């Protein structure tokens, strides 16, 4: 049988170390997103090939 859920307890405020860890995580996420931008750009160039320049001006 599942135990009844106890009422939620408000979390303690993040410590300085917690905030630093969360900041490092955000930076890593930003770098991954930037990497994905480059990834999709390069893959699009390769998939489209020279035809990427073939458009009406």
């Amino acid at each position, binding site marked *: 049988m599942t135990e009844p859920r106890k009422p*939620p307890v408000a979390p303690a405020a993040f410590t300085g170390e917690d905030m630093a860890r969360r900041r490092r995580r955000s930076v890593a996420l930003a770098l991954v997103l930037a990497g994905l931008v480059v990834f999709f750009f*390069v893959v699009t160039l390769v998939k489209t090939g020279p035809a990427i320049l073939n458009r009406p001006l």
Partner: protein
Amino acid sequence: MSAAFETRTDGATLTSIGEARDFFALLKPRVMSLVVITAMAGMATAPGAVHPVIALAALLAIAVGAGASGCLNMWYDADIDELMSRTAKRPIPAGRVLPSEALAFGLTLSIGSVVVLGLVANLLSAAMLAFTIFFYAVVYSMWLKRWTPQNIVIGGAAGAFPPMIGEAVVTGDLGIHSIVLFAIIFLWTPPHFWALALVKAADYGRAGIPMMPNAAGPASTRRQIVAYSLAMAPVAVLPALMGFAGLAYLVVSVATGLVMVWLSIQVWRTTEGEAATKACYRLFGFSILYLFGLFAVLLVENGLGLMWALPKVIG
């Protein structure tokens, strides 16, 4: 986005303090590296070729997909992971990543990797990646693992699919080459995993997981390890006999296959005390080297064109 904290049923409050390395750990990087090398071998042995950038992009998608399934596995297994010494330090049981974060992370990467593979390669490879993730996260983790001692035998298929996905990326089809590579990994999984399960039987017993040593006993597990090794070693030679691997692969697969069988026999014969544990760890450690070695030679021979070709004996 997940909340910054979560309340457990016992009232304890968990806060979101995981760093990038914790999320990376959720992807089971060591398993990912095996997936990458086996998928690369599938690509290299496939008849045909793709643009190197497309091959790299596809490999990234396959690796992330495999990582996502590992993440979903850790999310589902967090309750038993905290009971076992080998897994208690994983990010969720250690309290560094919230379960809801792991679930969101795993689902996002699963969907993203399948979509990307479909866009950069083809629908067949994307469908196979989706099936692999489903097989590992749902069929193995949620169903087989806690239900049958054949869990890692059947579930091992998930780890054996990457060469087939690799071939599908190149050809848009499935051929006999990647099916042989699938068979090698599939037959390799039981001796590899059960060598560890013999040592960690108490852990699995505490967590209530019916691994073969717990369900059928150590003696039966040892016999089955030898049987699977005896079946695996000749199958691992097939690439050389079928003409998609050369002399170097033939020599390496025969020599290391014999070592695998010999180490399995040592596990079977050595049943008591510290010597038995050492025999199990020797087999477990060598089995990793064995699979990496086979696929590395396949890659060098096919990917770099350094193959001393042999006459085709089969196929």
